């Protein structure tokens, strides 16, 4: 039987390497720093309180992410945050490609114009159920199976949410990129007219 101090040390050793990933995920879920910081504190307090039930040698990373996502849903996710779920048609609808800058394909233009700000804005724009799956698998690198365990949903649901999440994310990114290209085009016209 471990003493309290030994338990604390084991907990800390397992926790510290995950802090960065937990914080990023908390930020993407809450979409604001203050709530993300409170969510982190609450998650860690809950995890330590439940640490007796954690079986050493099993997946600590998935275990603590499960506590984070549950804490978020129970304590932070308010009705006012609920976003209208887009219809399947809206998700499948392709965004029309604007003519990109000369010599580049629309895909190259997209990859070249996107900034970190666009990417974070796009991730945070998608409804929570898709966003969580996108963040856990595509950003944090959890497998579909681990994501299913963390969110306590079937693996098939992870796959369909991920598919839709990807579509929504791409749609948002194309829109930002098209917007930038249009602004650039308008700027060019303005310069030509002025001269």
């Amino acid at each position, binding site marked *: 039987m471990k003493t309290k101090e030994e338990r604390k040390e084991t907990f800390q050793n397992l926790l510290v390497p995950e802090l960065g990933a937990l914080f990023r995920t908390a930020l993407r879920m809450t979409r604001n720093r203050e709530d993300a910081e409170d969510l982190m504190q609450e998650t860690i307090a809950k995890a330590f309180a439940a640490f007796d039930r954690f079986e050493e040698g099993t997946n600590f990373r998935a275990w603590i992410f499960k506590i984070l996502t549950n804490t978020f849903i129970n304590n932070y996710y308010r009705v006012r945050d609920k976003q209208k779920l887009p219809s399947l048609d809206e998700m499948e609808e392709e965004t029309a490609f604007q003519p990109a800058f000369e010599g580049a394909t629309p895909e190259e233009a997209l990859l070249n114009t996107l900034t*970190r700000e666009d990417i974070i804005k796009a991730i945070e724009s998608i409804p929570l159920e898709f966003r969580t799956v996108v963040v856990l698998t595509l950003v944090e690198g959890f497998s579909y199976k681990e994501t299913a365990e963390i969110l306590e949903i079937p693996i098939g649901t992870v796959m369909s949410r991920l598919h839709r999440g990807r579509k929504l994310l791409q749609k948002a990114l194309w829109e930002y990129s098209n917007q930038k290209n249009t602004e650039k085009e308008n700027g060019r016209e303005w310069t030509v007219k002025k001269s």
Partner: protein
Amino acid sequence: MDCKEIVEKMYLYLDHEILTEEERRAFEEHLALCRQCCQKYEFERQLWSLIRQNGLGDPIPETLLNRLQQVIASF
């Protein structure tokens, strides 16, 4: 594997998920021969890699680390 199957399996391949060794080989052989699928794959690969790299920013602030250390010390 034909172009339709490539599109269906592309995300599984990109996510390193549940393709058998045989499927993986068939996927790669098709990409090597089909320019259209190869371009689509390259775009998807670069896009998701860009999203991952950017999503991994946001280092944890020092103030939060100190606050969490205090929480742990209080256990």
